[in-house]
């Protein structure tokens, strides 16, 4: 077991535990923090996979911007306490059972898949995750979606205005 594998398992464990903690934390602020931990773990995976650009963007956009926004909203609403006084046991049970069974089915299916046998994700090496490569691709082949995503932003902006503007 080399360092990469050790890192892989560590990060995976961190990601899954943190993800669980997102659910388990009673305080929304804690949830946010645990989610940020997940994002960091995932960024770690990106780095392992040599997708440096995404790793950075993930930290900046997700952990840095989006989650701060979440935190901000939670604070704004003064929700930094336990907000769910009563938890419905059955609901949790059913939720876990159905989510769990979905996972079970999917995993068992994936394990049967022969097409991905002996296929590996290349770790560390490979330069496709570099800004240079991605940038070239983004502004050549992917320029149309890039432009179109601007429309998406426009609409989101207008939407935020509509919703947020006081009447």
């Amino acid at each position, binding site marked *: 077991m080399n360092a990469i594998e050790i890192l892989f398992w560590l990060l995976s464990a961190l990601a899954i535990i943190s993800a669980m903690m997102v659910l388990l934390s009673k305080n929304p602020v804690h949830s946010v923090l645990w989610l940020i931990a997940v994002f960091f773990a995932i960024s770690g995976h990106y780095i392992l996979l040599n997708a440096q650009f995404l790793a950075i963007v993930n930290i900046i956009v997700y952990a840095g911007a989006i989650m701060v926004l979440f935190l901000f909203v939670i604070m704004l609403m003064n929700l930094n306490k336990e907000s769910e006084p009563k938890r419905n046991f059955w609901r949790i049970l*059913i939720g876990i059972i*159905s*989510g769990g069974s*979905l996972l079970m089915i999917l995993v068992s*299916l994936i394990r049967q898949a022969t097409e991905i046998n002996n296929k590996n994700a290349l770790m560390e090496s490979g330069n496709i995750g570099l800004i240079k490569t991605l940038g070239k691709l983004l502004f050549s082949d992917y320029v149309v979606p890039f432009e179109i995503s601007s429309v998406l932003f426009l609409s989101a902006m207008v939407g935020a205005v509509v919703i947020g503007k006081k009447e």
Partner: protein
Amino acid sequence: MEIMKTLLAFIVLWPLVGFLVNGLGRNYFSKKRIAFYASEQIFASFIASIIVFILIKNNGAQGDITYFNFIHIGKLIIPFAFKIDQLSAIFLLIITGIGFLIHVYSAAYMQQEEQAHYGRYFSYLNLFIFSMLLLVLGANYVIMFIGWEGVGLCSYLLIGFWFKNDNYNYAAKKAFIMNRIGDLGFLLAIFWMIAKLGTANYSDVFSNVSQLSTTDITAITILLFIGAMGKSAQIPLYTWLPDAMAGPTPVSALIHAATMVTAGIYMVARSNVLYSLSEVAQNLVAITGLVTALFAATIAIKQNDIKKVLAYSTVSQLGYMFLGLGVGAYTGAVFHVMTHAFFKALLFLGAGSVIHAMHHEQDIRKMGGLKKYLPITHITFLIGCIAISGIPPFSGFFSKDEILAAAYAHNPVYWGIGVATAGLTAFYMFRLYATTFLGSFRGTPEQAHHLHESPSAMTIPLIILAILSVVGGLVGVPESLGGHHALHQFLSPVLLTEVKYETTHSTEYMLMGLSVAIAATAIVIAIVTYSKKPQISNSTGVGKLLENKWYIDELYDAIIVKPLGSLASFLKNVIEKSGIDAAVNGVGKLVNYSSRQLRLLQNGQVGGYILLMVLGMIVIVLIWVNDGYIYRFLMNLFFAK
């Protein structure tokens, strides 16, 4: 031929025109004009019938006279055609002749009716004559059936003539429905013929009779006979006839005694070719006739309504005729039809005269001693009674004797019962006569005050019919009594001559003597018993049974009418409402119910929605994992090869 065609058309059309004119113009014409017009139309037919009769007598019968094709589909051709031969010629005379007399009689009898109803009455009578003529003249069973149902309709209309009275209406309905039961048999017989032979023409059916199997013939004849049972009031379809006395008395005379009820006889006689080939059917006809004759006679003994007695006697006499048909004495049966038409019309009209005089009182217990008030009626009525009792040389004797002789040849037991019935007939007829005309008057003084002889328009027909009742038998004097049976010879081209009943003259004499003796004895007993002290108290035991007509009406009510009614109610209230309709509405309710339940899924909870979505996903993935197994399973289930 052309003359015949025109004549027959007119014979049939005159009454129809009379019906239409009187029916439509009943509010505009005077009573006199209505009566005159109606009678005149029938009289014209009668004259034409005589001409036809003479032509037939001289030239013999000819082929069918076709007017147009009633139905023509592919190979099935049902022409609107008439067949005029000896048999129908005789019936033509009876129908138009007696019909005319009764028209004349009715003109006076119905005088008290309002003008509109008067017109209605005569138009019905004309319509009846029209239908009866169609029945008799038709050259195939379908045309006969048209007339057959037509007379049923007229009977219905005339029984219910006084429609304000619900009992009368009920009687009318009963008559029609019982007739319809018979008609169904008749219809099925026609279908059978058409199915097997492709035709319903008499000539074609009779000439192709060899193509029919014995089963076919038996079935056809029995089905035809069921029709005849209905129309001619044989057991078990006889109960309508006594009730039919609800109609005006001339109607009873015309329809329920002289003409319509003999349609069954006519039909069987017409189909004699078929009946002769079926032993089973013949026996059935004979036994039915015999039983009916005896049975009706027993009931007649205890009836107190003057018309009811006559009605049961009609049933009984019709039984005789069927006995004759059954034992192969077709001519005898037709002969009896004729004589019976004379004396029964006479008796009914006489009874009508009595009722007229008694102001619509029909209970003989309230009569008595009418001899002196109604002399003509009395005499003619007496003649009728003698004639029906079979005392020589009155007409009834000859016809009845011919049937009895044939019955003896066929089976002496038949003869024995026949003679016993003849004795009963004589007994109840003279009971009637004695109670009505002899003794002292038992009605109210007011009635006594009004008692008077009927007007001449009524008495003249009585007299004519009385004469015919006396001499009518002469056309059929058997050889044993020195005659040569003119009727027999006349009808021989149409009716098969069965030689089965060849008996020696001495036997015949003995039989005649015996029957006359029994009848005479019965007459004496009846007169002695009833002329002085008529039975007024209610009878008991067997008497009560007879008085209540063996409780047959009640029996029918209990085993047919009531169960049918409850079945209908059951179907209407349970099967229809709570069964089928409830099932249909149940589908709607089910949809509504499931709607109410299903919408609870939409409980407003996002978590719940997503949960169901996830479950849906799981199901879809599972179906997919099954890899078509469920698909194949379902396909095999629904579309198994």
